[in-house]
């Protein structure tokens, strides 16, 4: 357990890395505020911007690097793969939770200032729910899912190199692309799929289903890391 906590603390050795996702989101926020002010977007009341996604994607990349760069270093310091993985998962959990609570706080500020004075729904959007705890979860679960996706991709890279990564990307494009083609071709299926997604509540869409995905990524990363050679 001690070693797992030490592994989690490894992620704090260069603490500014924690600020990186916020810096990237901050730049997106800044541009959004400018655009909304100049273009007077509030009139149409858009359902929200995807600006917040920039932080989610950055977090994913940070966790790819945790496996590609921090893991070989940690193993050089005689940490087991397992302890490193569990420590990283622990850290990702805490980080997501803190981020989720901060997002919720910022959502409240956003509401109080009527969208930062320009009607910008940056932290709000169609994912807003009434219950504060569920709202935090709606922020936290996708963060966790992307963190574990990053870990799984990072492990894949360590195991199979950049060729493995390209193969994964090509496979994903073909998989999702094929699905898209199928839906474009079969109108009935398309309606079923769209119906399914629009029929889901925000809570199911942002916590329930992603959680399943997250478990899948977490398992893949754990199985893959067992045979990583630093």
């Amino acid at each position, binding site marked *: 357990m001690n*070693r797992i906590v*030490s592994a989690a*603390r*490894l992620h704090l*050795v*260069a603490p500014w*890395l924690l600020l990186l996702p916020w810096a990237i989101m901050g730049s997106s926020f800044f541009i959004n505020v400018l655009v909304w002010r100049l273009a007077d977007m509030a009139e149409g009341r858009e359902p929200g911007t995807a600006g917040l996604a920039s932080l989610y994607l950055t977090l994913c990349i940070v966790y790819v*690097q945790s496996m590609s*760069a*921090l893991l*070989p*270093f*940690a*193993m*050089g*310091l*005689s*940490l*087991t*793969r*397992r*302890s490193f993985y569990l420590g990283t998962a622990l850290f990702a959990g805490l980080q997501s939770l803190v981020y989720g609570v901060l997002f919720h706080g910022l959502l409240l500020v956003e509401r109080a200032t009527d969208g930062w004075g320009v009607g910008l729904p940056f932290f709000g959007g169609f994912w807003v729910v009434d219950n504060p705890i569920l709202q935090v979860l709606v922020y936290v679960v996708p963060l966790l899912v992307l963190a574990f996706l990053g870990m799984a991709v990072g492990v894949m890279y360590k195991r199979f190199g950049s060729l493995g990564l390209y193969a994964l990307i090509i496979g994903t494009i073909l998989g999702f692309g094929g699905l898209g083609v199928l839906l474009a071709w079969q109108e009935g299926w398309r309606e079923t799929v769209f119906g399914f997604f629009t029929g889901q509540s925000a809570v199911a869409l942002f916590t329930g289903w992603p959680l399943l995905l997250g478990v899948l990524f977490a398992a893949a990363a754990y199985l893959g890391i*067992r*045979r990583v*050679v*630093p």
Partner: protein
Amino acid sequence: MMAIAAVREVTMRFRGHTALHNVSATFEENVITGLLGRNGAGKTTMMQLLAGHLVPTSGNIEVFGANPYENESVLQRMSLVKENQKYPEYFRVADAMSAAAMLFPNWDAGYAKSLVADFDLPQKRRIKKLSRGMLSAVGIVIGLASRAPLTFFDEPYLGLDAVARQMFYDRLIADYAENPRTIVLSTHLIEEIAGLLERVVIIDRGKILADADVDDLRTSAISVSGPGEQIDQFLGGRDLLRREGAGQLSRAVVRVQGRDDRADASALGLDVEPVSLQHLVVSLTNRAEAIHPAAALTAESAYLEEASR
């Protein structure tokens, strides 16, 4: 002496080549062992197996009485300094030190600090920006200050100049005297470290050529020099390891067979000298490579079993 780490009948195959062929070797407690061999001989593979970084294709690895693979209690007592250790690109020297302090139970921060000063390492500089020699020094500092009961140095001196290498050897031997521990040092700068070593494991093309005390190994062979004809006469029936030079300036490294060797050589007017460790390693390696690989294995292991007794 107790073996603290052992590989038993280990074979390690990678895609396309076999790095270790059915290898067995032991590493004794509180001794400095040299793991010697040419580039590509299998030294790094052996250390990665002992550190649980690799899993053998077949055979057993035992460290502190257990399999090191994913074994926290074994690994906590071990430190491996690799020539090609990777560091996160945003890490500074000081970051690497504080990470090491978190993970090594015996870490000595004061000692680490003095080593950083000795090697002139800039604390605030990013590791990525360090010269090759400084990068090696970071590994050396971590390896020494970790004070792990079992410490592996895998060619830790790349890019270090002679002065810095000597500093490494001096610090190593001084700290070893104060805090005895098991140290395994792989290197091909044999001459430089011969004085530090008590035991050697010599490895060539994935096979063990020797696993012996340095003194036993050294006295297992002699070097005779003089005119070629007399050497030919002396060699009759003896086990020649290496022959060099020609005419009046011939030299031969010969396996010691009995008490008469020196007397016989002197009677023929030949000079008899002890063999340096480096010369012996070269002789053994060359001979192993000259003979057919399969034959080399049996002949050499028979000889070396004798030498290590």
